[in-house]
């Protein structure tokens, strides 16, 4: 297994209030697979993804990615892990506003040992003609493409997508999913997508459902369908 998550717990402390965001979560994903985590808003999906991506830490349990156990890493080691292995796609894109599309992608290639060519990625995400634009001059879908380009540019083993289509319309969402699918096929990148949209689980190899921080269901998807054909 490429991703192996064992009995992960996570609590948040807000003032005197303690909130259990993840309870005894188990989850696995093979290399080169697409995984989908389903669940309603507030169920703990982002928390789980962030623990996997090394931007948040678990209270107990283990998270193993490839050969690395990231639970227990200090912040320096986590930075190196993110730098080498993880590509993030955020729901709100998180682009650097004062850098152009091209430069935003360079932000990632800059710190990567084996980066892809910026022009190639921009062509792949269909933004070649927008490369000198600033993020605020792009639509939401285009900004999400930049964010994908930035995540993929490092050529990471693992691509983590937090509601990548959450802020997008139907048509644009499907385009983005197709793009992720293409990346998975051509580069062999392991992709983990979280969403509250059940239909999206159609493109996944493995799916888990999460509710109030607990895994309630988990299955292997035998009938994968291409992104263009999913409907909701």
């Amino acid at each position, binding site marked *: 297994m490429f991703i192996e998550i064992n009995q992960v717990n996570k609590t948040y402390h807000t003032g005197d209030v303690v909130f259990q965001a993840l309870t005894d979560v188990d989850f696995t994903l093979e290399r080169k697979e697409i995984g989908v985590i389903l669940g309603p808003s507030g169920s703990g999906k982002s928390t789980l993804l962030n623990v996997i991506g090394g931007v948040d830490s678990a209270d107990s349990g283990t998270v193993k990615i490839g050969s690395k156990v990231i639970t227990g890493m200090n912040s320096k080691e986590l930075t190196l892990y993110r730098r080498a292995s993880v590509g993030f796609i955020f729901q709100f894109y998180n682009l650097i506003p004062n850098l152009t599309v091209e430069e935003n992608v360079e932000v990632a290639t*800059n710190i990567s040992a084996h980066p892809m060519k910026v022009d190639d990625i921009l062509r792949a995400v269909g933004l070649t003609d927008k490369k000198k634009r600033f993020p605020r001059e792009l639509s939401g879908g285009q900004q999400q493409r930049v964010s994908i380009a930035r995540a993929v540019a490092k050529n990471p083993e693992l691509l983590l997508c937090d509601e990548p289509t959450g802020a997008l319309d139907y048509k644009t969402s499907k385009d983005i999913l197709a793009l992720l699918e293409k990346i998975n096929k051509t580069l062999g990148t392991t992709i983990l997508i979280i969403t509250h949209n059940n239909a999206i689980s159609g493109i996944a190899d493995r799916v888990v459902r999460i509710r109030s921080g607990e895994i309630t269901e988990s299955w292997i998807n035998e009938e994968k369908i291409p992104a263009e054909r999913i409907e909701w």
Partner: protein
Amino acid sequence: MVLNRKVKRTMAEHKSQYIGSIVLIILSCMIFTLFSILSANLDTNNRDFQKKNVQENAHFTVQKPLNNLESLEKTYHMRLEKRLSFDASFDHDTTLRLFSPSDRVNKPFIQKGHAIRKTDEILLDPSFAKAQDLSVGDSWMIGDQKFKIAGFMVLPDYMYPLKSESDLFSDSKQFGIGVISEKAFRQLNNGAASYSAHFDHNADKRAFKRAVNRTNRVTGWLDSTNNPRILFVNEKIKSIQGMTGSLPIAILLLTCALVSIVLWRTLKTEFVQIGTLYALGYKRREIMRHYLSYAWIVSFIGSVLGTAIGLIAVNPMLQFFVGYFNVPIITMNWNPSALLLSILLPALLLVPVTWLVIHRALRMSPLELMRGGKKKSKTGFLERHLHLNGLRFKNKFRIRELVRNVPRTLLMVFGVTFASMLLLLGFGLQNSIQFMMDGNRDANHYEYNYLYNSIKTTAESDGEAYSAFSFAPEGKTKNAENLFSVYGVHHPSDYLKLPDSNGHRLSLSQTIITRPLADKLAVHEGDTIKVTSALDNKKYEIKIDKIAQVYTGTAVYMPIEKLNALLDLPSGSHNGVWSDKKLTIASDQLANTISRKDTQNSFKAMIQPMQASIGSIALIAFLIGLVIVYVMTSLIIEENKETISMLKVFGYKQKEIYSLVLSSNTLLVILGYALSVPLIILSLGGLFRSFSESANLSFPVRFSVWSIVIGFVIILITYGISRYAGKRKISHIALSDILKSRME
């Protein structure tokens, strides 16, 4: 690194803060550089000049000429030179004192032109030449001889060209000095001879004096430590150094502190980006390096430009200032340590502050940062205990905004306070000097003041008789700087009116001390001071009844009969006369004549160096103040950008929004200004005290109501303009962009 490309764009985006900060640093580094070099040059050149041109340690007159100068020099380890002088009249009330050339002691420093080569050439004191509108090459007649100005020079024993050693102030309009050749001297007048002496370290001054007295007689002797022509220059430089030293460094430090805060708050808006970079796998070091570049850029562009401009301005400023200080600039002192400080200091403050801000940011997790930094989980104490139920929404909103962001509120208030203080500096200076001049006029009401050269016992002329004798505090050497006058005056007097601290006229039947002397001797009403007479070295005790609130002059006034009794003088004794018209008194009876106009002119001349130096600092401080208000206002408006745009999205009208969000800031501006008034009065008081200590003045801090009103109007206008600019910038941003930028 690709990230560096964003630096320029981010700075352009927050122009007001970054460019404003750079301008602030430029201005403060400029005055710091300018005044450090200026005061270093006054000081070192003064010392160099005194040493290189062999300033005398004493000068003296003898009954018959000394003719064994060389052997005396050898025996007593000294340099000795005879010099002739006489007073020529330049025009009807202007005296030009001419000297024979000196080349062993008190060597003239040629500032412009060349030394005397011909009999018809003359060297002039430059301030006299300026006052009389003479330049090198000009010529005019002295007696029946024509003289051509060969150059301008400064004589080490006449740096401050006082006509008489008892004069307080020099006035180049009425007195100046010149040097002519020995030959010309003999043709014009034989002049009076005096001897200038410079002693080596191992010299025995008293042995020399005794030796001269054995065969001859010393008829007059003045040590340089008692020579006001030398002392005043040192004192003027000392007093100005205190102020020009502390003021620019204080301005520079405070400006840098303010800029660090601006930078800190501006960088705080980047937390989401810092978090994103961190999540993408950027190392702390890499993120730190990127954000530190903001600090480096702001501080170095500012400090290098500011220091450079300061350097360029040094020469013209120096030319302007040397005239006030009577110090010739022999070699330029570039004060490299001050230059280095000027270049490094802004970075020394800004870089660590930025480091701290980013370091603290990076202690948060990437997640927290992407959410905009750790929000306070608890509501603030103030916020929780604020009960606003009865208020209208508008007021509730305003108060909540102020309370929610206490640091921002404080920053705005203190920013405006600091800016207002800088702004008011010049006003305070001008008002205070004006007040002091008026105050001086109020105390002395004579037009002419005649001081006899001997004590009279019967009234010999019209006017009001008085006595004045010199004393030193017991135990102090009778140096010029310790001596003060005790006056015996008639009560009531027509010519002397002394006010108490409430402005009421004090009765002259009491013993009254002036405020500057009271401060200097630390005496209070009812104290008794012990003094030694400069005349006969006898000791006396004087009980002080009252302190007069006058700002110039170190003196004690008591009824003339009481003074006569104290000094054991016959009743009716006096040695001076005050009058409101010119009196005819034979000049051989007089030691000194001073008209009130002379006093006032001379007083102005005394104040000028201070007025000029603090005045020019005040001018730049004024500009700095304006820029600070601008930077602060745009920072606050930008920090409110989100609230403003959200209200806009809700459908609030522009006018409603600004009245909600920005009008509370107007209140803060008023508060900030109100705080600045007592603070500037306090700080100016401290500043003036450092001046008065050496200048025998007590400098009151006065602000006219008008200055305070004008200062306030200027601050309000600046605030209004900055607000207008900020508003325009915000209304130019499309709403959709703002919604997007919330997500970035």
